[in-house]
């Protein structure tokens, strides 16, 4: 087969294509197999419409988060991974603090990776469900726009739900 013409060789064993993703926050670069990166619908659209150069710049996502995203994509691009393996691997990826999870869900949203978006959203929900609402305000950067009277009235609607909470 070594003497086969170039085009025939490509057809039987296509060369593994790679893409380079670059975090625009800290300029970290990641070289990934194309089929791994294409799990991101955003990147797929760029590649399909020939908008992707050699290096794909990823704005607003840090290298740390991008590494997690790539880990997720690698796991899910592996055809021999069982559903159980993937579940375990996903749980490992989202075993992070709440602020990292928020960055991760934003990245999953920007890159349009449905599975990662779902698993991260669920983990955020699990992490905040038992927190007092005051802490939730802080985590999501929400300003309390209630007057003290209004807040008391809202709380009174379901006073029993606040048992054990400040």
């Amino acid at each position, binding site marked *: 087969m070594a003497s086969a013409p170039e085009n025939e060789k490509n057809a039987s064993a296509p060369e593994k294509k790679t893409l380079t993703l670059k975090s625009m926050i800290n300029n970290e670069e990641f070289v990934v197999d194309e089929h791994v990166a294409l799990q991101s619908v955003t990147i797929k659209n760029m590649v399909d419409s020939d908008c992707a150069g050699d290096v794909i710049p990823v704005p607003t996502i840090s290298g740390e988060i991008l590494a997690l995203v790539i880990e997720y994509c690698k796991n899910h691009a592996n055809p021999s991974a069982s559903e159980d393996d993937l579940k375990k691997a996903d749980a490992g990826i989202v075993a992070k603090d709440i602020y990292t999870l928020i960055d991760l869900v934003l990245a999953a949203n920007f890159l349009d990776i449905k599975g990662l978006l779902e698993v991260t959203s669920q983990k955020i929900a699990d992490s905040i*469900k038992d927190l007092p609402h005051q802490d939730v305000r802080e985590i999501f950067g*929400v300003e309390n726009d209630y007057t003290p009277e209004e807040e008391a009235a809202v709380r009174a609607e379901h006073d029993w739900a606040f048992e054990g909470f400040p």
Partner: protein
Amino acid sequence: MSDYIPNDLLIEVLARLPVNSLIRFKSVCKSWYSLITSPIFINKQLNHSKTNTDEVLIRLHTATDKRNTIYCSMTTKNSVMSTRNWSSHLESNLDIILWNPSIRKSVTLPIPYKPQCPHMFVLGFGAHPTTHEHGWRGIGSYVPPRGIVEFMWSQVFMKGAVHWVANDPCVDVGYCNLVMLFDMGEETFYEMMLPLLTLAEQNPTSLSVKLFGESLAVLCRGQRDSGCCCIWVMKEYRVVESWTKLFNINLPGMFDRTSGFRKNGEVLLSTSNNCLFSFDARTKKIVNTGIRGSPHAFYVEPFIDTLLLGEKEDGPLQGASDFQERW
């Protein structure tokens, strides 16, 4: 809403929260309040809840006046069972009460036609596939004459229809049972045959319908105290030929009756000394749930944690509906 994440993403996260957290998080700010009480969000949370829960609601005690009833719910997550309890004091005089334990709210619907005798009517509960209103409306649907459904018989709501075991009163000797259903969307009654010899000819009081996973199941109880129960499922919905006998439960001397199914297929059985056991028919493993009740009170139904009945047109906030327009 949030300085950090866009609204659609925030909704994606909040819709995965249990109702208990959501009603506390109405206190976060005004826009969270209007989001959490908006019908669109309530629906989205319901859809998540439906697919992710294995929770069942269990009736434990009924007082003689039937107004003070104790319920608990049971769910298993990562092999850990958790329960929560309610005591309901629902005042009713032949009215219908819609009660959502998750938000501890009830709505009373007075019965439009009060029958002279309290046991001479059957109610079927379900949800219309497109509208989500609760209330009464007369319908001119043809009622099949063969389907007599008794007051206390069980019902299952699935695939947009309420299902009952019914019985044909025109049969002179023995019984002829069938499943009657009322399709909420079409507002039409239908009949489905039951397998002959096995289910169709049993005493109808020994039959009940239950939801088994996504399928309609019919339970056939053996004689009282026999500890026997036979479980059939309709593998393909509305295909009469697909009725299949799933398994027999045969635990004489111990079990009083089959109360219901869990999402994992395990059967909840009550004992003659009022304990509730979970039984895996494949492995034959029996686990005591630790839940106790009073005689004949056990009644198990799937439970979905939802904010339904908690919609707000106007909250305690002046003009809360203004915020809703953002959604």
